């Protein structure tokens, strides 16, 4: 087993991650990669409290995590790698060899256009996602395990009509 889900989700650790994916995948640990959370003890405590005791949470900044990813990839338990935005995930794709990227939730903001119920993207974010694909990563959008994974090409063509 290894990192079974590499997810971009602006809510970071929440119900969909811990329960929706965490239970069926029998997740043993979460690697949360976020520069802001990495330097806030208080935020870390907040996310720890929200995670069931059988799930370990590791906090890293983008720069600090790349050297540690092989260790997590070799862990015998299934784990989730989690970032709050596309830029952090791009860094992991280009510097740490992440090859499958799940877009789990990027929500409404003024400069973003809606693509799915749970995916809104700015032109810059679309470029970053395309860059991941060019680097060889498979990028799909899927909020929960039971919903259909939507490929990047379809995602960027859709006008919020795909559910």
């Amino acid at each position, binding site marked *: 087993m290894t990192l079974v889900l590499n997810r971009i989700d602006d809510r970071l*650790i929440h119900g969909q991650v811990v329960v929706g994916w965490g239970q069926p995948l029998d997740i043993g640990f979460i690697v949360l990669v976020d520069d802001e959370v990495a330097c806030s003890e208080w935020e870390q405590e907040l996310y720890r409290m929200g995670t069931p005791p059988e799930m370990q949470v590791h906090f890293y900044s983008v720069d600090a995590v790349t050297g540690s990813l092989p260790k997590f990839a070799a862990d015998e338990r299934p784990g989730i790698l989690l970032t709050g935005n596309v830029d952090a995930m791009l860094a992991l794709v280009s510097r740490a060899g992440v090859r499958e990227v799940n877009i789990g939730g990027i929500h409404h903001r003024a400069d973003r256009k809606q693509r799915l119920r749970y995916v809104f993207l700015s032109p810059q974010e679309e470029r970053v996602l395309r860059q991941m694909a060019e680097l060889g990563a498979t990028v799909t959008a899927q909020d929960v395990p039971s919903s259909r994974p939507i490929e990047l090409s379809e995602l960027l063509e859709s006008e919020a009509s795909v559910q």
Partner: protein
Amino acid sequence: MSSRVSSGVRAVRAIVAGHGEFAAGLVSAVDQITGRGSAFRAISARDLSGADLDKLLVQTVEETGVTVVFTDLQAGSCTMAARRILRDRPDVLLVAGANLPMLLDFVFAEDVPAIEAARHAVDRGRAAITAHGGKT
């Protein structure tokens, strides 16, 4: 007419927040049973970013003046947002894992402060979970 059987619109005494239609569903159930659904303001986390949900919850707490927030799930984003509020507002009480018996108990405790009513409701809600049958 005593307050026990009084009807009509009530001041909001607590926020109920959760995934999907959890909050609206619970509040409508409270209203169907007691007519006191207006004691709650329902919030859904659906399709909001973490930052927007934080904002919505802060706004709702300020606007309603309530000090009690019920949420559905410990790890849920509404619970996370409520915990962030607690950082600046230690007077706010957050109850995660809310259920219908809990909210029913809460709406009937109109004569005590909301925090006290919520603490009592937590005990009631916990005690109301039972399992029957299931023979194999």
